[in-house]
């Protein structure tokens, strides 16, 4: 990846982080930790990798994206708004009565949202169905799914993993936002999921590991994805990334910042901008 692209994506990710913080603060509730950890992954997908057209949200040849960790809806909404699927100004209506920006992604209400998620463990199955349809129709779109590491505790994920490998879905890429934390604390303390790479490989997937905050590594891994079997990218991330007082703290899984905390958080992100 050239330096210009890298700089552009990092800038976009910071802008998305600001959106995330502002919309969750405005809503008074939401999930900042797992939204912030996924911002670089989402910026890379929506502004470098995926074939989408905000003017045609239902374009049959678009790449599909399923946010299996649906509580990170703010990062998806931030990406879609930045893309132009809907106005950026609408983001602060998150979770409001009557808003099309529901607390968790709603396929029926929000342009650019390809699946209704929020109940963990279900998104990868939907992505498998989309990938099977692409093959049936001989269309060349790809299907991406973003999972949480805690979410891998759901049995359905492994049912879906088995089926994706069985049907050799070479146009399916799953990314795991491995931030190491879930609501009750460290993933490995709540319910151990290690060793992840070996698990995915044993299920027949091509498995890559990257720094989930390095946009060039994420993009490179997607380039390297297998075309004959499903690929999973284990993206090591920091929960709450970009906001020093949220980083690595499970308590910020599902809590809105106060207005003072919002200002501190935005200041930290602005400083990152200036440091570039």
């Amino acid at each position, binding site marked *: 990846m050239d330096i210009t692209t890298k700089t552009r994506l990092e800038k976009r990710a910071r802008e998305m982080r600001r959106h995330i913080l502002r919309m969750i603060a405005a809503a008074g509730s939401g999930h900042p930790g797992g939204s912030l950890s996924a911002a670089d992954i989402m910026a890379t997908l929506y502004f470098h990798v995926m074939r989408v057209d905000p003017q045609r949200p239902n374009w*049959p040849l678009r790449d*599909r994206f*399923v946010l299996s960790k649906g509580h990170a809806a703010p990062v998806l909404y931030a990406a879609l708004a930045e893309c132009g699927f809907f106005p950026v100004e609408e983001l602060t209506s998150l979770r409001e009565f009557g808003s099309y920006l529901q607390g968790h992604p*709603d*396929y*029926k209400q929000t342009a650019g949202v*390809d*699946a*209704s*998620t*929020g*109940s963990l*463990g*279900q*998104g*990868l*199955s*939907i*992505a*498998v*169905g*989309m*990938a*099977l*349809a*692409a093959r*049936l*129709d001989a269309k060349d779109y790809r299907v991406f799914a973003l999972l949480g590491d805690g979410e891998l505790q759901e*049995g*359905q994920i492994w*049912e*879906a993993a*088995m*089926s994706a490998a*069985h*049907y050799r879905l070479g146009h399916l890429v799953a990314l795991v936002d491995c931030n190491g934390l879930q609501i009750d604390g460290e993933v490995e303390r709540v319910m151990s999921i290690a060793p992840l790479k070996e698990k995915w490989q044993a299920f027949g997937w091509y498995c890559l590991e990257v720094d989930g905050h390095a946009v060039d590594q994420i993009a490179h891994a997607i380039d390297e994805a297998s075309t004959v079997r499903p690929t999973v990218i284990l993206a090591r991330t920091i929960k709450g990334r970009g906001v020093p007082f949220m980083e690595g703290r499970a308590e910020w899984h599902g809590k809105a910042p106060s207005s003072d905390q919002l200002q501190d958080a935005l200041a930290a992100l602005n400083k990152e901008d200036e440091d570039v």
Partner: protein
Amino acid sequence: MSDKVATRAAYGKTLVALGREDERIVVLDADLSGSTTTAEFAREFPQRFFNMGIAEANMMGVAAGLAASGKIPFASTFAIFATGRAFEQVRQSIAYPAFPVKIAATHAGVSVGADGASHQSIEDVALMRVIPGMTVICPCDAVETAGAVIAAARHDGPVYLRLGRHPVPVVMPKNHVFTLGRAERLRQGSDVVLLASGLMVSVCLEAADLLAQQGMSAEVINVSTIKPLDKAAILDAAKRCRAVVTAEEHSVIGGLGSAVAALLAQKCPTPLEMVGIQDRFGQSGDVPPLLEEYGLTPGAVVAAAERVIQGRCMN
């Protein structure tokens, strides 16, 4: 009422016919394709058939993904696994986004027979009825099943199709045209109306004959679409007959009887008896003794009709 055919058999045949007409039809099964009869579709359209293995939750999600991409998926397994095991996948991944997935589940009710309680679903209608936007159909015979499968495919939304393992009499005329949401009057009467679904429709027709011998005129209505309920037809019959019996091969909690009771209580309070499984699990056995044990016989319907008519007279 001569030849008997299982509704599941009509399902498999109709799927093949649908598959020939419409390329969007795809079928998923969870290692029960021989029993659900989707194997017939698999033989003719191997590319459009997906065996998902013994993993019902994933099957429902995959069906949702196929529907999101323009397909009309039929997802089949036994009723208890489709609605119980995978309930929340049906709710979240299929019904909430209103995807046109058709959950065609066989082996509903105690007429599964020897497999026993683990495989006899008596809760599935209740589970599917409660989901917003879900259409629930329980056809009474092979003829109606064929029509219901086609209607389900054409309906733009999720559908639950409840099918049986055991051969049942064909009661609908061969040329019957199934209309989603319409209850069909099979016999006119004036003393009591028997509202039935599934295999209880033929049982109620027999019961109506027995009641006629005792000088009671029973109307029989096939309520194969349990949701949305044909309110007008049911209210009209209740007003005319002033006594209602519901009959279903399902728990009396949450099924056809509950739906009718709620309607009547709100719109036209009418004496009501509910024939169905009385808050019990099933068990192993041949079908006739099971139907006897759980009160799913013409005799049980006659007794219920007598009770409800008597109750009306006392009021």
